[in-house]
């Protein structure tokens, strides 16, 4: 896994638009192009004043640009004051961004089929994985879950590429795609697999804690490796404050480990739910 070292950069906003019912996409130029691993994130701020004080973690959604000029994109949902402020920023205004941060998904295992599971805004770390696998023509399927059709990511954001995996949309109220929770869709689809196919399966998931917990339990039962992207409140995002810890198994003992540096992607077996 090679990626650019972490940097603290100033981004200039190019676009910041609401899409669909609840999501925003913000695009900014940064001094240099960035390489990142899907699942890695950035700490983002940019509103004036000291309140809120702390930057917000957002998964790197897309990066691009050519030598001497980078571009970066995030997608987000307004859930509180920080994201509300973010949504109020205009093109031309600046962002402070530390990136890329954390350990992303491990997509380097030879001969695996990946299933990508995104709940809610969790698609933001799952789409970059899909885009990469698509480019590599590595087989994958993607499961996207939301409460209603309006809570699903807009179709035009779904990554294409040479080998766009099959995408299963799921809604809890049945207004689009599979009627039910995304975990149920995953489990149903799993039952269709031959034991041989199942043995090649790796699951990557990002979404609400309950969803990740269920994915972990179910994959553990079946011996299917799973990587889950956790969230936690963060102050620094780069491992110095020790504020973002979760409890992990280390052998038969537990330890507090940092989501921002030891994660956000963890082996599902490690997590103490």
């Amino acid at each position, binding site marked *: 896994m090679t990626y650019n070292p972490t940097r603290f950069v100033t981004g200039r906003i190019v676009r910041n638009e609401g899409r669909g019912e609840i999501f925003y996409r913000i695009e900014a130029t940064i001094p240099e192009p960035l390489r990142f691993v899907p699942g890695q994130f950035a700490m983002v701020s940019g509103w004036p004043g000291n309140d809120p004080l702390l930057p917000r973690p957002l998964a790197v959604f897309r990066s691009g640009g050519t030598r001497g000029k980078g571009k970066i994109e995030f997608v987000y949902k307004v859930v509180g004051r920080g994201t509300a402020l973010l949504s109020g920023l205009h093109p031309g205004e600046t962002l402070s961004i530390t990136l890329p941060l954390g350990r992303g998904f491990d997509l380097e295992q030879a001969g695996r089929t990946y299933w990508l599971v995104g709940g809610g805004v969790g698609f933001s770390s799952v789409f970059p994985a899909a885009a990469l696998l698509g480019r590599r023509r590595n087989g994958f399927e993607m499961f996207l879950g939301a409460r209603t059709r309006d809570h699903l990511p807009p179709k035009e954001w779904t990554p294409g590429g040479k080998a766009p995996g099959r995408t299963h949309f799921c809604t809890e109220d049945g207004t689009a795609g599979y009627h039910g929770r995304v975990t149920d869709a995953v489990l149903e689809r799993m039952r269709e697999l031959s034991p041989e196919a199942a043995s090649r399966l790796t699951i990557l998931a990002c979404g609400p804690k309950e969803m990740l917990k269920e994915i972990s339990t179910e994959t553990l039962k079946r011996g299917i490796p799973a990587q889950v992207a956790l969230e936690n409140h963060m102050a620094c995002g780069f491992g110095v404050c*020790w504020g973002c810890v979760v409890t992990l198994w280390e052998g038969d003992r537990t330890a507090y480990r940092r989501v921002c540096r030891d994660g956000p992607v963890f082996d599902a077996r490690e997590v103490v739910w």
Partner: protein
Amino acid sequence: MVTPDLSVSLGGLKVKNPVLSASGTFGYGLEYMPFYDISRLGAVVVKGLSLAPTPGNPPGRIVETAAGMLNAIGLQNIGVERFVGDVVPRLEDVGATFVANIYGKTMEEYEAVALRLSEVPSLGAIEVNASCPNVREGGMAFGATPGGIAALTGRVRRSTGKPLWVKLSPNVTDIAGIARAAEGAGADAVSLINTIVGMAVDHRTRRPQLSNVTGGLSGPAIKPVALRMTWEAAKAIKIPVIGIGGIQSAADALEFLLVGASAVQVGTANFRNPRACVDILEGMEAFFREERIAALADYRGGLRMENSP
């Protein structure tokens, strides 16, 4: 114009400039190397060290508050042995001046950590955390009274020849009295403030937001209190005072120097801006140049009290 002389002696440790990192907000220092060369700082003060590795408090460790944050990390750290074995050589490699912040559950533990660290020739100073509000044994009991501070300071003093800084708690009625007690018991400098004890709850779930219930408030919110206490301490004692609390900019840092601090530590600001310490250092240099101030000593403690404001 000549480069202003920003060097200052902090109780036996001569530093090339008065901008230091604050313990617990700078990891072991090396984490900042991607952002800038940490050897540029006056000193790096590392995360609080205990004798044995410490797991810290359960999750639910930080909450954001208005222009501040509460933390109840519970002093999670790798312990003094791993620090000496794994971290010190790397800090030496990068050429950083570094200071160890220490704490213990008991006076004996403080003493033991200080003893062990005294064997590290490259260590610049020992900063005794006599004030962590987030662990029962974090020195809060020692830090709250002049008697407690004197006892703890005296004990550590006898166990080390290193420059000894005592870090004071703001959660006291009379900071000047506490500072005098530390000075009297042999501290080479005092640093202040540590965090102010605060609390956050969720009015819907009806639960505390921190697993530890209370936590330490830091950030710009506390700057006016930190500045006042720095001023009071500086007036009360002759040993150097290191000002801490809510410093985010060169202007903030200069305010602490103006009221009598010999140096400052930058804490929470490092989270939002990983380059905060060097940004502050550069801003300070620019200010001294602009104002044609040749040396830190010409500015420090220069608060003008005649017919204020």
